[in-house]
């Protein structure tokens, strides 16, 4: 009996392990952020269009907002940009842009040519703000609730499906929760 059961159990265990580990739908690069549920780190930078104008997330304190990390070097950000423009038109939440590992002029040109979906665009010249947010690539998008806590992080370009199924319900819930 054991001679049969033990190898069988080992086999079933391996199948489960492989099914979990080799699932093609699982994005192995998407890592859970330890910042979920924590206060959003401060953004205190300058506007990408105008270096004399400060951009802070403190100015958005009290409302639900989105922080979108992007760069002109990032091809997937180009893909995402059209969706961000659509989202911005819906005027659901303000989107703060965080320009990451890029040159000011490149980012400026990008926004002038493609349109600007952002309520404000912060220019992270030395990547320090990005480190505080645990950013390891672009695009990355954070959702911050009215209490200033990060409630969701999405790595990869936002698609209409992702916006409808991941972001909108969380925004609704955050607003229902009193903020």
């Amino acid at each position, binding site marked *: 009996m054991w001679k049969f059961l033990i190898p069988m159990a080992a086999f079933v265990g391996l199948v489960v392990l492989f099914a979990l580990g080799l699932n093609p739908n699982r994005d192995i*690069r998407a*890592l*859970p952020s330890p910042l979920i549920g924590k206060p959003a780190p401060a953004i205190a930078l300058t506007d990408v269009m105008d270096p004399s104008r400060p951009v802070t997330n403190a100015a958005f304190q009290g409302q639900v907002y989105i922080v979108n990390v992007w760069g002109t070097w990032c091809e997937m950000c180009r893909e995402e940009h059209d969706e961000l423009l659509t989202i911005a038109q819906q005027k659901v939440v303000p989107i703060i842009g965080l320009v990451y590992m890029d040159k000011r002029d490149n980012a400026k040109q990008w926004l002038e040519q493609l349109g600007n979906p952002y309520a404000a665009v912060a220019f992270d010249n030395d*990547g320090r703000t990005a480190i*505080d947010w645990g950013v390891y690539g672009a695009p990355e998008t954070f959702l911050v609730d009215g209490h200033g806590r990060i409630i969701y992080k999405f790595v990869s370009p936002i698609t209409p499906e992702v916006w409808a199924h991941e972001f909108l319900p969380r925004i609704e819930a955050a607003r229902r929760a009193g903020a």
Partner: protein
Amino acid sequence: MKAHGGRLRSALLLLTAVIGIAMLCAAVLTDARAAPAGLGLQSAIDANGQLVDPDLQARFEHIAGQLRCLVCQNESIADSNVELASDLRRQVREMLVAGKSDDAILDYMTDRYGEFVRFSPPLEAKTLLIWGAPFIVLLVGVGIIVGIVRRRSRMPIDDEPTPDHQ
């Protein structure tokens, strides 16, 4: 008695081998904890990026070798050339110069990037299985070997008569 002695000797030999493997496992584990990315550590650090204080530089290399570059996940930030890795190296250097402890720097990174940023997970309740797994497997192996040896020798329990019985 003589035949049994032969079997006992082979059993002893097996046990010695098992203990040897266990010690090897332990050695590899402790080594992995001390320096998971010891190879090629210097290669990714540019010559003028060295810290002047050799002690700090040594600590820098140790810490940078323990932190995973999240862009190229199998490289440490010491080995990687991507921009994020160089930003993180700058951060580590700055914190060292500011007098932060190694643990404070590792905590700083873990707070932002999660446990995954560390190549060797800290030994705590939820990582007990990771650190314990080799020893669990070893115990199972020993159990199987002992079982096989026992069955093969088919020794009665009171094989060696005690003085009482004589």
